[in-house]
């Protein structure tokens, strides 16, 4: 078995065959993991006649499918919708979850514990149970088929609040006291002093919220009625059915839905991985 290489205290041992085998198996596993993505991308670059030729590198790659699909405008619209929805919800979560997390971590007042437990208890309620009341609410207030209708259930989350509270608890009170003595008001203290100290947590929260909303399917499927307001996953699902199972078109649509997050990941890999680790450890 391979020696623990990541332990700096131990002297590096020689390359052992066991470690080579482990590395190779890990690598093969990793390649298998991305195979579906490779198939999706490569098929999106093939024309209809080559679809069932299962080579990963297309014989005659073409962007024709992309032009066709993006050309009819709907996918661009869905891309825009998904972006608007995911960004707005993310901004709202970063603001409110950290404000509430901060208040619960750093203020002493009666009712604090009740508020905390109450918010935390919503974690136990699956959104599926709230979907019907939300649907009723949305139809009564005319929110069906609107951005607000897609977004309103997720504007704040208990998960984010809890995560931020954990991090704010690590901020020393002295910092805040010093600011108070300087005469800053509480909002400014939070905004200018406390928030910058927890940026890793904020980015973790932002990444999770964005990803969750970008890929969300169940609620947008229910609340949107017209194709103009679909988010990408919902749009793709209806598009795929409508395409009479033309796989190259469906794979192109799936690629369009998937590529943005993959590309963002390539640039921000370090932050995203760290963010996921943070959220997982503290959350």
């Amino acid at each position: 078995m391979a020696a623990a290489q990541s332990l700096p205290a131990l002297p590096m041992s020689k390359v052992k065959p066991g470690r080579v085998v482990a590395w190779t198996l890990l690598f093969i596993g990793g390649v298998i993991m991305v195979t579906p993505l490779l198939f999706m991308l490569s098929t999106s670059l093939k024309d209809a006649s080559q679809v069932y030729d299962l080579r990963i590198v297309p014989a005659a790659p073409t962007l024709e499918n992309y032009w066709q699909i993006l050309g009819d405008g709907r996918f661009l619209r869905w891309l825009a919708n998904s972006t608007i929805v995911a960004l707005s919800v993310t901004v709202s979560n970063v603001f409110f979850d950290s404000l509430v997390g901060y208040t619960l971590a750093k203020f002493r007042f009666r009712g604090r514990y009740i508020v905390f437990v109450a918010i935390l208890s919503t974690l136990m309620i699956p959104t599926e149970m709230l979907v019907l009341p939300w649907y009723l609410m949305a139809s009564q207030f005319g929110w069906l088929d609107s951005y607000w209708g897609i977004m309103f259930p997720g504007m704040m989350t208990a998960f984010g609040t809890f995560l931020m509270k954990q991090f704010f608890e690590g901020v020393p009170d002295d910092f805040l006291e010093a600011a108070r003595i300087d005469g800053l008001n509480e909002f400014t203290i939070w905004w200018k002093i406390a928030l910058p100290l927890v940026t890793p947590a904020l980015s973790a929260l932002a990444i999770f919220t964005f990803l969750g909303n970008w890929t969300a399917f169940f609620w947008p499927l229910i609340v949107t009625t017209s194709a103009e307001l679909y988010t990408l996953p919902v749009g793709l699902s209806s598009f795929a059915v409508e395409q009479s199972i033309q796989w190259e078109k469906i794979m192109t649509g799936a690629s369009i839905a998937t590529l943005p997050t993959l590309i963002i990941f390539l640039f921000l890999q370090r932050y995203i991985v760290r963010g996921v680790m943070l959220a997982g450890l503290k959350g």
Partner: protein
Amino acid sequence: MRLKHLLASVAMSATVLAATGAKAVEIEYWQYVFETRVKAMDQLIQKFQAANPDIKVKQTTFPYADYQTKVAASIMAGQGPDVVQLFYGWTDNFISGKMIQPLRASAFPAADIERDFFPIVSAMKRGNDYYGLPTAVRSLALFYNKKIFKDAGLDPANPPKTLDEFVAAAEKTAKRDGGGNLTQAGVTMDMTGQDHQWWREVLIRQNGGQPYTDNDSKVAYNDEAGLKALTFYIDLQKTKKVGQVGFMDEGQAAFRGGLAAMTIDGTFRLGSFNTIKAFEWGVTELPANAKGERSNYASYFANAITTKAQGEKLAAAEKFLAYISSPEAMKVWLEVVGELPARRAAALTPENLANPIYGPFLKGLEYAHTTEFKDEMAQRQVAIDMVNRVLIGGETPKDSLAKAATAEQAILDRAAKR
């Protein structure tokens, strides 16, 4: 709460827009998304607005899968369309939900409707009232791939006329690889498509039975005829091995992809099949049984006026409905969508009857039946499950048929109670 402000301003601008357009009556028309239908309706709306400058029609479309739900939800919420397209099988649901209103006899006299339209329009009649009118009707036919026919030594100009010839042609055209796996289907098998209609209204009747009695409220297929019809269908995969459920995912996809010699589908598929470039295909009437008896299944989407349309909107909606059920509109619909006119005179022209594609469908209309679905999706699911129980569950056709009859009767009974 910047969002609330945003919403408020959006709502404001919407009211402003509505106010400026107040001179013309604006009515909303809803149908499901299907490229050619949307295109045809756009043309009709243009022509209608040119003739009626005081009326504006706004078309909104939804995917078929959610269509019924969305319509129901919006009308409940007091929004939604003034004129709505609905599958004739949903009529009971829409009436019991108070979503659509009966057509006023002053604008649409029953006697005229019965004189001019094909008799299947009666599925829109409740008591003395009609609740909607179709622009076009659809029927089934057998599509066949001429290239595959030729390659298999069959005459592309002489497609199968009887069920025996149909099976023989399928056997000649089906291909399997060394492992016995189907690589080219003789006939597509897809209960999620039109096959459940073929089984219900055609195969059962050709075996001497009938699918339902009492206005389609009692299941009647759990008998010898139903069993023969089911066995015939199952045997296409099980013993004849000329088709396979799930081959190429969907039956129409297999035919489109040039890997199925024959498929049973409706007029609405013409638009999609017309874009096929790789091979030539033909259409023929559904095969007759040994005694020469034929049947067909016809269906249609009707246009109805919702309960939301009142006053001047009601008058505008009636005008619009009359226009989209006119012979002129039917001609546009036939040209753009490829669906058959719902008025006899517009449909049965010598020109249409001689058309190699429309001809077989029109002939089918003469002996077609219409199922009065109570819950089309659920009833279709019964048929899907019935076949699956035999093909992948290993049940006998007899047991599966009996279970299907029980399940469907339960759906009909539940619907009757509503």
